């Protein structure tokens, strides 16, 4: 292991891999990525693999849109065979008038940003997903360029491209402390030795708060277990992801043929990723009601992963005045996989002193200074 590098990235998920690639692509190759287990062992390898642009805040819409533009060309840019990206849309179904008003507002915002989303009646929704049970569906929205992407392969593509450009990755290497002197980063302690460095990037997903504490930076995030399951693979029967905030479900058929589905409940904050019967029961009820034929499929696995929640459900991307050289990419609140490309672009621009490709005020930690945040992104399952 190297004992000195300019930049140390903590976390080998989509964020860490994308940041590493973007730095190296811009010529900064004195970069080391540290991962406690193996790449994608955190939320990235446990996620629902959905990528969508139908968000309720301008910032989330923009990050998602630019990231999807990247996914469309990812194989070519990263020189990778296949990341299993498919754009067959996201169908969002709502239950009542109140949700319909929210849809109206969201679609207006999305269209103003060039996202091809539209509102649908339940009948139009059924044309797109014929096995949708429209009882209790009031209206829907659809965006055809949303879709699915394989998290393992996408991370692998970034990893290999970064490695080819000179970045070093150390797996099974856990960060145990961060050295800060006079408000400046000096190095990182790991269970495999010490690495002297000027810059640390906290891309530790569900453990971002703990990494912040090591550097003496208080990050207002918390983690929550979210459960998910997968069925046996079957022949193609559902093109888009079907999702509902009020019914609390997301469900899509992967290109491989298996259905992946999940839902959220208000768990206590914590770091457990256990699997529960309660989730399985509630998931089975919800999906069998909304998409009846999917109920005939056998579950083959269930697991949990951590959402890292920020107060306004938008990510925290950027540095801090408190500690020079400490950067954060966390608080993705359940949508950090699809934001991966922009996370890497923005962090690399900030580190290298380039003009950021997006206004940063709403992404940096300082947006929370002395403020109670009100504008919550509500479009989260």
């Amino acid at each position, binding site marked *: 292991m190297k004992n000195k590098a300019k930049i140390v990235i903590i976390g080998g998920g989509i964020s860490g891999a994308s940041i590493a690639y973007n730095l190296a692509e811009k010529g900064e190759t004195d970069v080391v990525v540290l991962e406690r287990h193996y790449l994608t062992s955190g939320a990235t390898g446990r996620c629902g693999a959905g990528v969508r642009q139908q968000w309720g805040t301008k910032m989330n819409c923009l990050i998602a849109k630019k990231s999807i533009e990247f996914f469309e060309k990812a194989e070519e840019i990263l020189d990778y065979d296949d990341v299993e990206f498919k754009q067959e849309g996201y169908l969002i179904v709502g239950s009542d008038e109140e949700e319909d008003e929210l849809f109206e507002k969201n679609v207006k915002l999305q269209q103003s940003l060039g996202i091809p989303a539209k509102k649908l009646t339940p009948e139009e929704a059924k044309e797109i997903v014929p096995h949708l049970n429209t009882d209790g569906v009031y209206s829907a929205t659809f965006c055809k360029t949303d879709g699915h992407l394989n998290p*393992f392969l996408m991370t692998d593509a970034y990893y290999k491209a970064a490695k080819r450009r000179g970045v070093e990755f150390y797996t099974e290497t856990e960060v145990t402390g961060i050295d800060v002197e006079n408000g400046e980063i000096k190095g990182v302690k790991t269970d495999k030795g010490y690495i002297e460095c000027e810059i640390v990037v906290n891309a530790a997903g569900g453990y971002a708060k703990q990494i912040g504490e090591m550097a003496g930076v208080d990050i207002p995030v918390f983690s929550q277990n979210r459960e998910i399951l997968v069925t046996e693979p079957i022949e193609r029967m559902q093109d888009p992801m079907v999702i509902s905030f009020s019914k609390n479900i997301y469900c899509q058929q992967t290109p491989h043929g298996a259905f992946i589905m999940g839902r959220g409940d208000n768990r206590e904050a914590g770091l457990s990723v256990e699997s529960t019967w309660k989730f399985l029961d509630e998931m*089975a009820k919800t999906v069998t009601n909304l998409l009846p034929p999917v109920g005939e499929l056998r579950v083959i696995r269930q697991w949990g992963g951590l959402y890292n929640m920020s107060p306004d459900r938008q990510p925290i991307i950027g540095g801090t005045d408190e500690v020079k050289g400490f950067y954060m990419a966390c608080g993705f609140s359940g949508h950090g996989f699809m934001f991966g490309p922009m996370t890497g672009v923005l962090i690399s621009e900030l580190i290298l002193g380039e003009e950021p490709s997006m206004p940063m005020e709403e992404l940096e930690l300082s947006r929370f200074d002395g403020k109670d945040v009100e504008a919550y992104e509500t479009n989260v399952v």
Partner: protein
Amino acid sequence: MDPKNIIICRCSDVTLADLFELFDEGYTSFEELKRIARVGMGPCQANTCGKMVQWEISKYFKKPLEEIPFHNMRPLTLGVKLRAIKEAAEDEE
């Protein structure tokens, strides 16, 4: 026999030659192989191929079999229909 013709994981259609290629690319643990090539992730959940994968890792890297961690077993490895789970849950209520 040609490793190309030796199927290790029937569910996910992975041959011994595929495994060798992955080993050479640096994927050396069961957990990594699962994620990159779906080895052991099929309907049988590695009941068929699990031991073979472990054995091949051990042979290739010349490490004792006991030192090769088996993959994480997840709950529900038998495959139950969602509708059956729903009905059972409703019966209990």
